[in-house]
């Protein structure tokens, strides 16, 4: 009986792993090497939106088969979710906007909560834990775009 259950669990796990080898490229550019080493020949790059099949893993590297090339890339660049499902971008932006508005200052915070018919514990919460949400707004203003970052990288190369 126990062996049967064990076999069932093992079979289920194996099937899940074996059937879950497709991964997605979310980053702007994922370099692909001929072998799992930075000193190997760089044979190309996969860009955002590509789907790959993971053939095998080795020490943080993944051998992948893309539509146009096969090679090795860093495993950390692969995602389990397709690009368009990665974030539910519109919904995230809506949450962010709501939170930004609510956290603008304690009074706004309380007003937003009140407008939503929620209990006003947020200001106590912020005070108890010495939370500084105002500085987070300043930080948000310092963010840069992908294009700015790529241009910055180019400028730093010989």
């Amino acid at each position, binding site marked *: 009986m126990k062996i049967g259950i064990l076999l069932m669990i093992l079979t289920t796990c194996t099937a899940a792993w074996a059937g*879950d080898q497709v991964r997605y*490229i*979310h*980053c702007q550019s994922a*370099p692909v090497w001929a072998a*799992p*080493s*930075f*000193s*190997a020949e760089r044979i190309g790059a996969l860009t955002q939106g590509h789907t790959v099949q993971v053939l095998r*893993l080795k*020490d*943080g590297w*993944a051998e992948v088969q893309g539509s146009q090339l096969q090679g090795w890339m*860093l*495993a*950390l*660049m*692969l*995602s*389990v*979710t397709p690009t368009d499902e*990665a*974030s539910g971008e519109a*919904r*995230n932006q809506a*949450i962010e906007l*709501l*939170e930004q508005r*609510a956290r603008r200052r304690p009074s706004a915070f309380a007003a937003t*909560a009140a407008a*939503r018919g*929620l*209990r*006003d514990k*947020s200001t*106590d*919460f912020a005070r*108890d*834990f*010495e*939370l*500084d949400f105002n*500085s*987070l707004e*300043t*930080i*948000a203003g*310092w*963010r*840069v775009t*992908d294009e*700015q*970052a*790529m241009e*910055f*990288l180019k400028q*730093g*190369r*010989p």
Partner: protein
Amino acid sequence: MRIIFFRLGAIIPIVVCLCAAVPAPGHAERMRVRISSIGQKAYTQADIDAEKRFGHNLAARILGNYPLWQNAKVNHYVNLVGHALTLFTGRQELTFSFAILDTETINAFATPGGYIFITRGALANMHDEAQLAAVLAHEIAHVLERHMIRELHIKATGDSVLSGFAELIGGATGGVRGSLESSLNQAADILFHRGYRVADELSADRVGALLTATTGYDPTALKRFLEQMGPFEATLKAQDRDHPDTLHRLACLQQVLSTNGLHAETGQRNKERFHEMVLSR
């Protein structure tokens, strides 16, 4: 000057045991990579939302402890370096933010969801842009690998975006709210006192080094920075249960570099730009 970032490991036996398991080619590390980078479970959108909300609160908590350094020019520069690194990661669902804390303490922090902080003291002790990138990459790696999320079991309590929002602003039950407070306390304890688990620190070193190299920076930068900080160690006492000592980190880093064919010549240091942007501010 109080230094936290380079605490000596507290419990040598644990470090020694993990040393055997964690180096790059080791079985345990291979398993970790499989679990966290490739075979990672498909987190639900609600889990990712919870991670972001938790990280947002934790970031506010960090800023409650250390003031933000209000230097737009240098903060912009740190954001450029940090954002460049994130272009090469698989977690594009996150919006990373970078900022400098106004303290002489040498330290760096990451929160789930993508807030990365570095102290003015750490910045002042760096020699080039690659070292800045390496420290940021180490912190980014903690986020990519969800170290804190997994240690504290942070997850969504429901699928509703609105219910998650209500939790944060106090609309949830006392129990849920108490849980959030408790988790924030534990997270702050990890960041300010205990440190991450040894295995997580070494994993962040490893992933960070690979990320640094992929972005085009000198992959030995973190190793150089840790070596520079070596003399400070004499002033340190073990403050936590399990932070890996620097010698151990250096040994593991060297192994990562060797295994992956990485050496100083394979990347940029951008010393001049760093001096122009940071040291001559």
